[in-house]
């Protein structure tokens, strides 16, 4: 059930990266140590503390110069590979149509990260959990739009009613095609049965660094078909491990705090 989705109109993205820092601000995510490698894009990869970022790509073809920018991150797929891959059922679709990781059930096995066709799931080594964009679920259920779309100056990101967003996207694609962008298209309408992040691209998805044909990996589907019914057994098994892990972590934290206090 998706009633509200987010439009990402890449043709309007100015690369100001308001979305990138607004995400960190709202979700209180730490900064990552990075280095300059010759592109404006940074951090280089998604992680537990980087859920979204602006991807920059530059091209010069037949005398035409393009600097393509777009906000990327979790697509909140309908046919979500991460959900199928998760051995504990920790990943699920919420009532808002978003894909969320249940932190209590997650065992940090990273199968989801491996299965994700967009490579957007990160791993938190402190809590031993997979982490990714939540679509600001806390904001959604409180009647607010996600922090990334709220902050976007050019309406490159628009949050709204699914039907209206699709119509808007279609109009925009028509406009772009008429104005010298024959490859303009919607992305995310049919891919993985539709995503809650719906793109308008002025060119082919590969040029934005998006997979041309994202799919749930075949292995993941097989794995899910065989293993799905037995999931509850594993939940019990890992539950114990989890409990032990948390206890251990707490002890470590406590010890560390005491050490710090001692040294002050």
């Amino acid at each position, binding site marked *: 059930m998706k009633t509200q989705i987010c439009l990402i109109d890449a043709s309007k993205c100015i690369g100001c990266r308001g979305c990138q820092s607004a995400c960190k601000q709202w979700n209180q995510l730490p900064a990552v140590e990075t280095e300059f490698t010759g592109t404006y894009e940074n951090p280089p990869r998604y992680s537990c503390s980087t859920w979204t970022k602006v991807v920059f790509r530059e091209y010069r073809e037949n005398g035409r110069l393009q600097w393509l920018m777009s906000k990327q991150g979790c697509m909140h797929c309908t046919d979500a590979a991460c959900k199928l891959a998760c051995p504990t059922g920790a990943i699920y679709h919420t009532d808002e149509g978003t894909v969320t990781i249940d932190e209590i059930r997650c065992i940090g096995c990273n199968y989801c990260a491996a299965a994700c066709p967009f490579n957007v799931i990160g791993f938190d080594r402190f809590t031993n959990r997979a982490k990714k964009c939540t679509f600001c679920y806390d*904001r959604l259920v409180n009647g607010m739009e996600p922090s990334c779309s709220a*902050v976007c100056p050019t309406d490159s990101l628009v949050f*709204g009613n699914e039907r209206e967003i699709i119509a808007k996207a279609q109009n925009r694609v028509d406009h772009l095609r008429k104005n010298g962008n024959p490859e303009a298209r919607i992305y995310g309408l049919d891919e993985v049965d539709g995503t809650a992040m719906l793109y308008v691209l002025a060119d082919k998805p590969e040029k934005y660094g998006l997979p041309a044909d994202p799919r749930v990996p075949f292995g993941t589907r097989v794995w899910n078909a065989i293993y799905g019914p037995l999931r509850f057994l594993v939940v019990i098994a890992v539950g114990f491990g989890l409990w032990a892990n948390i206890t251990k972590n707490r002890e470590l934290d406590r010890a560390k705090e005491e050490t710090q206090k001692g040294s002050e």
Partner: protein
Amino acid sequence: MELTRRSFLKLAGVTAAAASLTSVGYRKAAADPGERLRIRYTQEFHTICTFCGVGCGIICNVRDGVIVNAEGDPDHPVNEGTLCSKGSSISNVSYTFDEKGKPRPNPKRLTDVLYRAPGSDSYEVKDWDWALDKIARRIKESRDRTHEATAMVDGEEVTVNRTKAIGWLGSAFCTGEENYLFHKMARAIGIVSMDHCARL
């Protein structure tokens, strides 16, 4: 529910968050982040972004005297809730987050008056009274040494009341009221070498 950027304001502040969940068949997000909006029960303050001349409105959500969230002001007619990367990072001036996502005061932020003595290779912490007194003394010494009360112009003595020996810079970061007092103070000293970022 049609979402507007305005709905942010209605919900923040002391309005309790009330989630209305009408769906069947899909779960609510069971654990965190859930419905507990982190800006619940906060006070709102309107400020102006400091990072360029557009003058965007920012709302600071404050709990117990501390900013817990700063985002675009949906009511502001210029930015209508939007911001750029600098604007949405503004709280980073005060707080940074450690690896575990815990807020910590920005370790680089200056919080004390510092003084560097001639030839020294470090700063020492001083109090305000000491520093202001010392600075006032330095201004007076330099001014008294270099002040020109009059100058000869084509054989006529003209009152000029100036000193060229003290420079004064800034600032486009400060408010109109602060700049007004800067101007008054500088002219009272007789400063003519005065400039700010409009030229830099």
